[in-house]
Structure formats: C-alpha cells, structure tokens
C-alpha cells in the first residue's frame, strides 16, 4: 500500500534541525521507518544542515583543544564489534523506534480501556511538550467529536481511519491544529491502531467526554 499522506515541511524541518520535542520526533521517526519518500526529503534537509554548518562564521577555538582531543582519540580502544542481532522473522505491525517505546508489538501490550471500544497505551517521553499515545479503535468506532487547543498528529499503523474527507491507511499522517473540529472513525474491516501526539489537551464537544477527560489524561 502506498502512503498518500506525508509529513509536513514544518515537521520534517523541526526533526532535522533537532528542535522537535521527543513525542513528535517519535511520530516522525516511526513514519520515516515506513516511508522511503519522506526519508529522501529528510536527507535533503540534513544536507541543508551541512550547508549551514559550512556557512557559519568560525568561532575561535583554543589551540590546546586539538591536542587534548588527539590525546583522547589515542586512548580509544579498537572499535567494538557491532552488536549482532538474531535475525527475526517476526512480522511486526509497530515499527522501531515506536516498538521499543511501547515495549512490544500490538499483541504484547497491556491496553488500557479508555472508552467503550477504545483502548490506549500512554507513552512516556519526559521533558516533552507533547503527549504521545497509542490508540486502538475497534473497527467502525467513532472518536467523540473534538477540537484542539494545539496540534494533533496521527500516524495510522493498522486498519483505516476516516477523517473528514480522507481515508488513512498504514503509514499515513493526519495533522490537525486548533482550527480543526473533527470526528474521525475507524474503518469497518479491522481495528485501527494509531500513534497520536497532542501538544495540548483536546477539547471535546460532549459533556460526557469532557467529564471523562481528566480520568484518562487526554
């Protein structure tokens, strides 16, 4: 399946410059694992970084610095042999780096029930402005209608997610901001699992969902 919805320039620029917070970087990196097209864009932005490093004015560096670095590298022992991994035949649904963050693939996880037919795993990213979570919607389930106080990023990993006029599949990205009010729902065929990163709490339209909000920390 070809990915149709890609990362925005802004997100890729932030990732390449190193200014993106950890939770958003996790989403970007997980999309890059699935998307050769965005990996090529990412390489171009890294070259922009190289260009700018060349263009920077040279700061004065104490002359002793080179000798102290030379002394350090002479002490370096031979390069450690790379860690060999046992080849895996597993067909993972969750790509790295996300799989390590959540502690396993879809069926290994302790999903927490969040609402009827909706489960989640909160992902710990200390010092991050945003919160990342893995969400699992049973097929056909609607997310309560909500708006946003900030940006919400979604990466679909399994099934499909119908959001406004688009249908998103594995690898696709949805990016919404404070102007968006939407009510995405999972496609009919299988559970939809997605990574969602929000940089401010959601604003739910219904009183019921608003009351639940503090309990689930979304």
């Amino acid at each position: 399946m070809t990915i149709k919805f890609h990362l925005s320039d802004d997100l890729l620029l932030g990732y390449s410059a190193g200014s993106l917070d950890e939770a958003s970087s996790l989403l970007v990196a997980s999309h890059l694992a699935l998307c050769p097209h965005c990996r090529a864009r990412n390489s171009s932005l890294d070259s922009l970084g190289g260009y700018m490093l060349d263009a920077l004015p040279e700061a004065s560096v104490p002359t002793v610095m080179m000798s102290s670095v030379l002394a350090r590298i002479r002490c370096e022992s031979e390069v450690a042999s790379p860690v060999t991994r046992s080849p895996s035949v597993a067909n993972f649904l969750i790509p790295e780096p996300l799989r390590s963050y959540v502690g396993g693939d879809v069926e290994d996880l302790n999903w927490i029930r969040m609402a009827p037919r909706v489960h989640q795993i909160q992902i710990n990213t200390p010092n991050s402005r945003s919160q990342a979570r893995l969400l699992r919607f049973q097929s056909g389930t609607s997310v309560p209608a909500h708006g946003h106080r900030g940006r919400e990023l979604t990466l679909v990993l399994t099934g499909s997610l119908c959001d406004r006029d688009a249908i998103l599949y594995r690898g696709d990205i949805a990016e919404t901001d404070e102007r968006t009010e939407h009510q995405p729902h999972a496609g009919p065929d299988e559970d939809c699992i997605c990574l969602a990163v929000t940089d401010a709490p959601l604003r739910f339209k219904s009183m019921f969902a608003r009351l639940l909000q503090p309990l689930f920390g979304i």
Partner: protein
Amino acid sequence: MVALEELRGEENAVAASLADCIARISVSKDEASFEVLFRYFAPRLKSYFMRLGADASAAEEVTQEAMVQVWRNAGQFDQSKASASTWIFTIARNLSIDAFRRTRRPSFDPSDPAFIPDGEMLPDVQLERAETEQRVRLVMNSLSPNEKSVLMLSFYENFSHGEIAERLGIPLGTVKSRIRLAFARIRAALDTRQGEQQ
C-alpha cells in the same frame, strides 16, 4: 547547469577532500587527516553550539565530544549518501539534543524487520542521490540574504516563526512566506532532477 558546474569547482574540491579525510581515518586511523577535519570543523561546530544557546566553554566541550565521535564513527560515513559537512552536522545535532535539551531524538532503525526499505536502487538513482546534496546547496546559494537568514534562524537557532519575526522586525506572515518559498525552491530543484531522470 553552468552554475552547477561552477559550484562544483571550488566547493566540491573542499568537500571531496574533507570526505577523503574521513575515509582515511576509517581505513588507517590517520591523525593528519583528523587534524585537517578538526581545523575546518571545530570552529564551525563551536559557533553552531553557541547559536543553540551554549556558553563558550560548554560549546567547546561539546565540540570536542563531536570530534571524538567523528574519529570513532568514521567507518559509518558513506560518501554516496552525504557530504562530510552533512554527516558531521547530524553528529553535532544529536549531541546538542542530549547535552543542551536533555531529551531524546528517536530515529528509525534500518535493520528492523518492520522497516520499509528504499527498494531497488538503480545505479542512476544512486547517482541522483549523491547529487541531491549539490542541488540543495545550489538552491541555498541562489536565495537572497533575507530568505537565507529566515531559514538559518529557524533551522539553526530553534527560533519559532514568531521569534524570528520579532528578531528581524518583519511581520509573521513574511517569515512564513519566506520559509514556504525557500522550501518550494528546494523542492522544485529536486523535482527537476527527478524529471530529468525519467
């Protein structure tokens, strides 16, 4: 095309010799090559770290660390994928996140079974990849100083668009449109290349 050829002259001679230095470190632990790299990159790295908000002594400390990593990881440098400057930029960026922001920047793992590889790399596609960097540099050289400064501030100094507007004394909309324009040009340059390949 003429401009590209001209650019290849001087800048490429420097870039190629820097890349050769990394290769020699990888093959024979050549200290003279390391000294060449150090003289070129250490002053620029210090400048980069200071722009990210480090004071002079912290910037020097991280610069040393970056140069040690250049030595240690020289074997991972692949000239067909990136220039010396680009590769060293990524080392410096990753160190800065660790050192100054005390957070992490997760990255993908090409050896993960779930990773989707690039697919068949035809020889001319590989060539194109090596030239992508040239194209980006050419576009950057063609931007006006105003356009370049906006891109530099957002890229290098972690300024938000609003902060850039304030610092340069221009409207926020102008900042956004300059960034959009710069990106459109970079994208157009890369697409032209792909068009020629097909």
